[in-house]
């Protein structure tokens, strides 16, 4: 019968792609095994302290990626669009934090013992809290305006169009920052208490090692924020509304949810997380320039896809994993550290080829999948 022949022929035709896919997979897998074998068994030149150091830096970077990735995942879950300008929102947060530290550094106060210090050294906790608040506020405003100006009217357009609008917004914001603040690479002026490069000294297998204060701050704060966000989405009314809108917009609207307001609030929340991530990035890495948001943005998107887009725990897991892979990977595979970005992109491609729904699976609306 004809009906039975058709599927057979179709199966045969799509074979080539499947074979190529598997060959690709086997090559990648055998390469990884070979490199791991060479590095760990044949050469075996790295002592445990190096691994611990890489682990720490991976966790810190992973926390930052997770926070940004949550922004991507929230927006993608609700609007099914890649908010390409999200990295720029983070950049704006980084700049806001930078200016707060510059300002608190410039204000001189006389401490109780009579010596004149800057405000950021006299009240470091205050300065850091202020920087985070300002960074989050400015970045969430940027996210809110971004949605209102560049995306809102395109909600019903074909999906290529908001993506291009987002790319345009990203280019615009980058160059606006370049023109406003000049293309200089600036140093973050951390308060003395959490100066970069300082930390608790420990010994691992007889070798000295520091756990940087900025790293601890970044990591713990990102965990707290993630936990807060997760609770918010699970427990609060707004979180419920967000989940409802993500699942089905028209029905949510019928249930009395103001869809536009919820989408705005989603952008504000993702902007807040990105702003916090930006200030952390500045505190830990110490550099701020107009291009600072681009790579973290792309990588955070990679993490969101890695964990399963639309899935909030997935984004957290994906961010952590990507941070760890990026910092441990080059050493473990014995390749140049220059290629860590290549590693991130290769992982993205592999994940999308073999498991496009990510590690924890996608959580998306029913409409278009």
């Amino acid at each position, binding site marked *: 019968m004809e009906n039975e022949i058709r599927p057979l022929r179709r199966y045969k035709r799509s074979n080539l792609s499947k074979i*190529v896919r598997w060959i690709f997979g086997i090559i990648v897998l055998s390469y990884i095994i070979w490199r791991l074998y060479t590095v760990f068994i044949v050469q075996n030149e790295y002592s445990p302290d190096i691994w611990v150091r890489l682990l720490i830096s991976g966790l810190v970077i992973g926390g930052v990626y997770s926070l940004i990735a949550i922004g991507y995942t929230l927006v993608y879950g609700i609007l099914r669009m890649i908010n390409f300008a999200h990295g720029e929102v983070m950049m704006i947060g980084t700049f806001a934090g930078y200016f707060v530290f510059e300002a608190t550094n410039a204000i001189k106060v006389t401490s109780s013992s009579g010596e004149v210090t800057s405000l950021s050294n006299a009240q470091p906790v205050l300065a850091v809290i202020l920087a985070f608040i300002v960074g989050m506020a400015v970045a969430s405003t940027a996210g809110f305006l971004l949605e209102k100006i560049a995306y809102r009217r395109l909600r019903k357009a*074909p999906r*290529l169009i908001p993506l291009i609008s987002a790319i*345009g917004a990203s280019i615009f914001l980058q160059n*606006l920052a370049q023109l*406003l603040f000049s293309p200089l690479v600036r140093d973050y002026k951390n308060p003395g208490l959490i100066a970069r490069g300082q930390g608790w000294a420990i010994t691992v297998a007889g070798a000295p090692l520091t756990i940087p204060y900025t790293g601890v701050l970044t990591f713990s704060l990102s965990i707290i924020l993630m936990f807060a966000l997760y609770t918010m989405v699970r427990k609060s009314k707004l979180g419920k509304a967000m989940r409802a809108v993500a699942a089905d917009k028209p029905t949510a609207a019928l249930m009395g949810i103001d869809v536009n307001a919820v989408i705005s609030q989603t952008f504000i929340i993702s902007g807040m997380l990105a702003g916090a991530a930006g200030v952390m990035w500045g505190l830990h890495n110490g550099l701020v320039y107009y291009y600072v948001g681009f790579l973290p943005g792309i990588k955070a998107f990679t993490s969101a896809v890695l964990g399963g887009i639309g899935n909030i725990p997935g984004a957290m897991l994906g961010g952590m994993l990507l941070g760890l892979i990026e910092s441990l990977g080059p050493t473990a595979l014995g390749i140049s550290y220059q290629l860590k970005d290549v590693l991130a992109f290769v992982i993205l491609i592999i994940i999308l080829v073999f498991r*496009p729904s990510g590690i924890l699976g996608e959580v998306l609306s029913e409409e278009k999948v």
Partner: protein
Amino acid sequence: MNRNLFSSSLKKGLAFGIVMILLVLIDFEAMSATMLSKLLGVNVIRGALPQVRFMVIFLVLYGMFVGWLTSSNEEKPAKKLVQALIAGLSVGIVVGLFDLVLIQLINTGTDVRTYLAALGPDSIKLFILEKGALSPLLHLGLFTSASLLGSALKILLKSKPVSGFFKSISTGYRSLQVKAQKHTPDWVKKYGKYLLFLLIGLSAFFLPRIWGSYNNYVVGLVGLYVILGIGLNIIVGLSGQLMLGFAAFFAMGAYSVALLNAPFPHGIMLGFWPSLLIGVLMAVLAAVLLGLPVMGMRGDYLAIVTLGFGEIIRILLKSDLLTAFTGGPRGIQDIKGPTLFGQPFSSDVDYTYIILVFMILAIFLYKRLERSRTGRAWLAIKEDTKVAQATGINIQNNKLLALCLGAAFAGLAGGIFAARNQFTGPNDHQLMVSMNILSILIVGGMNSIPGIILGAFTLKGLPEILREIENYRLLVFGGLLVLMMLSRPEGLWPSTRPDIEKDEGNKLKGDTAPGKGGPID
């Protein structure tokens, strides 16, 4: 009602005021003055900054623009004027507050240029029109009156007598056109097209010899981007796959020609033409290797994967790993140009010829492809993948074919690009190149050759001519992309094809937008 009117004009005014401050912070007035001086030949520059007179005109025009835009929805002239008045006042107040800050800066002698690059003392003095403490009031008055003026102008132009006058002019012009068409002799109708082609051909042959090497450079660049645009259009516009890493194929072509034709890393010196062919083949090979595993992917994932692919290629070209093979971050120098029948054929005029010939070839190929069975299959896939599959189109093979053909064009353009510059390096193949090509399609109009040419000229040609605004190019370009998407997603010169093929009942608004129905699905 009135409160709504008030608050909406107030909001608009505040927004325009903030935009004004941003414009000042990025030194926009200096840029526009430079551009004006260059384009119109009037000298409004005094040192590095424009004259005060120019600044006043700039502010007045801005105020009129605000008035024009805010007084849009009301029927009654009085209400329009009130709207414009509120908007103008609020712009003035925002700018006035900003002035107070600026005056404070001037008085205390603080230099904020470390933070805000454009806000030097001179440009502050210029912005406050060298009036010191009076400037807030001056700005307030200026913006309010200019806004009222703009609104009045709008009322005047939109009023019945005036707009009727314009309408009658345009009707008259159209009837003249019809008359002229009636009276054209038959031979013009029949051969006019060929005559036009001949004219274009002749000017393409003679102009490059006359107008100097700089124009040749610009025309060559535009031509290369037209080829690239056509290549990407096959992928994005015809078969509906969003590709963000197109520069990778461009790099394949460029590096093939460079490696096979330069003395330094390998010294193979194969000659330009064979290496150009190899470059095209390499680009196709890369497309097959990329395409086979990722073909079944959803549209936006495909976009990100291709973006990642482009970045991987660029970082690899730059890395130490391949330095011995590709020249690393320093790139490859002294690429030898082409020869023709044993003669060197590599002056700027010759390159213009080569590019123009290939561009015409690309346009011809594209036209044939678009109307072929394959082209129709691509459009069908783009419009509705499932229906296309049901009609017996092999989705995967056709998509892959589109990717390969598009890549071939990119490889071709890359090869010529490398030989023409005699240099290629990783920075020639950045993500921005891919974005630029995509934007050419978007700005010009997808699936439309005149659109692509127009887009290539607007995005690559104009900025080359107006070198002074280099810094502002990307800013304007990003803003333009957003604005285009919001107001005219089909591009400046949209393709006419969807209108022909869709039946009348389906002609809803927005139906002709590119990628309708799901390049991403």
